[in-house]
């Protein structure tokens, strides 16, 4: 059997046959007859030039197929075929997390902790993915690089602001971008991009500015993290992405968010919080953040976080290295909050997000299972239902 591939298609029910995509395609992969405008799977190289020029949105359709639909088949369509059941499906809800295999594999790995196929929240905005790739990256300019951890801490976590000037970078909260470190690896090949979650909201680190922020921890011998943490204002950086189409924020103001993170896993939640602060500042009592670190000086954004009103974002900190205090981890705090968590487990409006180191997954899930059991509920079916409804998300590295 052929390896399944992603095929770019155009929705004939929505397309108005303006042929703008056809005129834009640099390699003439798009053609039409009297009925439909179609993409030739043999030619299309996913450059995505046709996506922004389409006035209708009909252009942004993808199917995973074993054998691509031929031009003749597509000419006959009056509506798009359903996605066939093809295993293993690397995407959720028909949406692509990423179009290149390497990035898709990285995200699949990061989302594996959810226990099944990830699905975006129903009311989430539709994510753009792979606007830029390794062959065609975008250049950003460093606008700032600030240390977030205390001077005396041995953890060096940084807040990096990248500016895209006039170039489009449509990124949603929860999405990631790739950073390409300069130079080559030991085998003399150029470095592959490393993925980082964006920590700013979609309208920019500063509203209306075409910039975004990343939250990056310096790792010993880390090629990319050391490169990024050493960046200076004005430096140019090669960027790919955006990536990810499921770990997203619901647009529904009534959604209740439980966000559990450690360390730089807080990045997407900073974006979530800022988005909701800007978009729906009156939606109070809807967000809870459970945030773990060794001590306050190592908790990224500790200062700014404390300024977010408690009724807008309830903050529960878990510190594991405080002098004269027992060690607290996020799962301990979840257990302490079991009544609130149990209430969320039963709510159709609740969305759970877990982000951080892979090691946290197990403890958090155990705590959630315990809380469910305490209520006479079984965790696995709840989790699976939440995930299928786009309400349970894990992104761990």
């Amino acid at each position: 059997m052929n390896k399944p591939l992603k095929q770019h298609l155009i929705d004939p029910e929505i397309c108005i046959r303006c042929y703008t995509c056809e005129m834009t395609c640099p390699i003439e992969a798009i053609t039409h007859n009297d009925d439909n405008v179609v993409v030739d799977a043999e030619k299309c190289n996913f450059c995505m030039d046709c996506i922004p020029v389409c006035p209708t949105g009909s252009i942004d359709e993808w199917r995973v197929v074993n054998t691509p639909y031929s031009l003749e088949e597509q000419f006959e369509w009056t509506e798009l075929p359903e996605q066939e059941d093809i295993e293993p499906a690397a995407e959720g809800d028909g949406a692509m997390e990423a179009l290149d295999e390497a990035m898709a594999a990285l995200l699949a790995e990061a989302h594996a902790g959810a226990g099944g196929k990830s699905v975006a929240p129903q009311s989430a905005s539709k994510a753009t993915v792979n606007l830029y790739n390794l062959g065609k990256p975008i250049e950003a300019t460093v606008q700032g690089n600030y240390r977030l951890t205390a001077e005396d801490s041995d953890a060096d976590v940084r807040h990096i602001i990248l500016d895209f000037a006039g170039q489009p970078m449509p990124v949603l909260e929860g999405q990631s971008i790739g950073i390409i470190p300069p130079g080559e690896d030991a085998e003399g090949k150029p470095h592959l991009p490393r993925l980082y979650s964006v920590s700013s909201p979609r309208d920019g680190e500063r509203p209306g500015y075409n910039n975004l922020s990343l939250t990056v921890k310096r790792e010993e011998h880390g090629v990319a993290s050391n490169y990024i943490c050493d960046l200076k204002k004005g430096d140019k950086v090669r960027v790919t992405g955006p990536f990810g189409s499921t770990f997203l924020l619901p647009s529904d103001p009534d959604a209740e968010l439980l966000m559990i993170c450690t360390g730089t896993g807080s990045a997407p939640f900073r974006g979530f919080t800022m988005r909701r602060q800007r978009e729906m500042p009156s939606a109070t009592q809807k967000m809870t953040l459970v945030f773990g670190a060794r001590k306050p000086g190592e908790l990224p954004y500790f200062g700014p976080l404390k300024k977010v009103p408690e009724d807008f974002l309830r903050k529960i900190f878990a510190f594991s290295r405080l002098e004269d205090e027992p060690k607290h981890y996020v799962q301990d705090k979840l257990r302490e909050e079991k009544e609130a968590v149990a209430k969320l487990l039963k709510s159709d409006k609740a969305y759970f997000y877990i982000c951080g180191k892979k090691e946290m997954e197990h403890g958090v899930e155990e705590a959630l299972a315990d809380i469910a059991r305490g209520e006479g509920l079984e965790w696995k079916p709840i989790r699976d239902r939440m995930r299928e409804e786009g309400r349970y998300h894990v992104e761990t590295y």
Partner: protein
Amino acid sequence: MVDLINVSYDTQIPNNVGLSSDRKVLKALEKWHPGYINWWNDLIPEKFQKSMVYLRTAVSVDPKGWAKFDYVKMPEYRWGVLLAPQVEGRTIPCGEHYGQAAWQEVPGEYRNMLKRLIVIQGDTEPGSVEQQRFLGLTAPSLYDMRNLFQVNVEEGRHLWAMVYLLQKYFGRDGREEANDLLVRSSGSEEAPRMLGAFNEETPDWLSFFMFTYFTDRDGKMQLESLAQSGFDPLSRTCRFMLTEEAHHMFVGETGVGRTIEKTCQVMRENGIEDPYDIDKIRSLGVIDLPTIQKKLNLHYTLSLDLFGQEVSTNAANAFNAGIKGRFQEHRIDDDHMLKDATYTVWDFEDGKAVQKEVPALTAINMRLRDDYIKDAAGGVGRWNKIIEKAGVQFELKLPHESFNRKIGVFAGHNFDPDGKIVSGAEYDAGIPNWLPTHADGDFIQSLMVPVTEPGKFASWIAPPKVGIDNKPGDFEYVKLHMA
């Protein structure tokens, strides 16, 4: 070096034509700019000037940069001068200069002809904004309001595009013509817009959708043929305008489609099978399909008139001079000079419509009109699919091109929508069934109630299948200014 792809903001006027190093033109445009802003501010109700509208702005003319979406107050929209990138070695695609290098400056012998074409095109752009000035007040949703404003700001930008050409290439008379574009006004007694179709007010949203579908499509065809111009700056200007024009086509096609969809849905829900059960259908707050057909007849035939006379020496001259080509000239396989070719046109002889062969050179208008008809028929077919899918027995049709014409060989004769000659009495009796009546207009007007809650739509129109910029259904496309 001038960056010809990305838009430069180093002058008051965003542009990719290196304005900052072209002092003379920059000065002329800056002088024109306040008049333009006044025109805009006088036109759009103040409440909307202060509202935040989710609009797309071009930040560059390459595919990645020209659809940047964000909230913007309309008077602060970055109208600018944007030309598609210059194609190296481009040649004149048609006429007696076929194959010669495209002109980068105005060829002296065609100066007046070129100027006139640019002025006419320029005149239609603000005209349509003027016609649509009151529609914001009765928008059926924030989504539709946003689409209206997007069309409006882009028509405004198209005016800029033409004014730039006038200021840059036509010296003092160019400047005077540019000023006159702000003096003439749709429907004005003293100084009306140049083409008849742009002097009628757009009274309701169905008219707006029909206008964007049929009349803007004429604009698209004109832009397509000007994009084939041997005068390269005009060609590049029009090529970029076409990408924006596609959005206007989209607003028209989906607007009419959503109106039809809602009518069919309500008919089905209420068990109405007869599409001519007009009173009952109207009582349910939707527009009956026969009335939609009448609106279609009106806007289609008005738009056909915009193509001018079937046989025209002006059009022949423009083609022969290489300043206006045919639709998709580069895809046509002929000599591109029309030396011996003929083309079939309509004529009126001995009391009836006949088709005959004439030299193709003189039939340029007719050919463009035929291309237009084919293009317009596509969407009608897709509207019929919506009706068919809902199980309603009704088919929308383009009327025969002889019906209701004021320009060309059919003008002054009584044709019915099937193209049959009828007597004066039959014609008078038929008209209320063929074209919208005052009563039809009043009924449609009665449905025009504004809906401003995000995600909600007026009774007569269905929500869109996909949001703008992939936004969710309840997205607040316009953050209305509350005084």
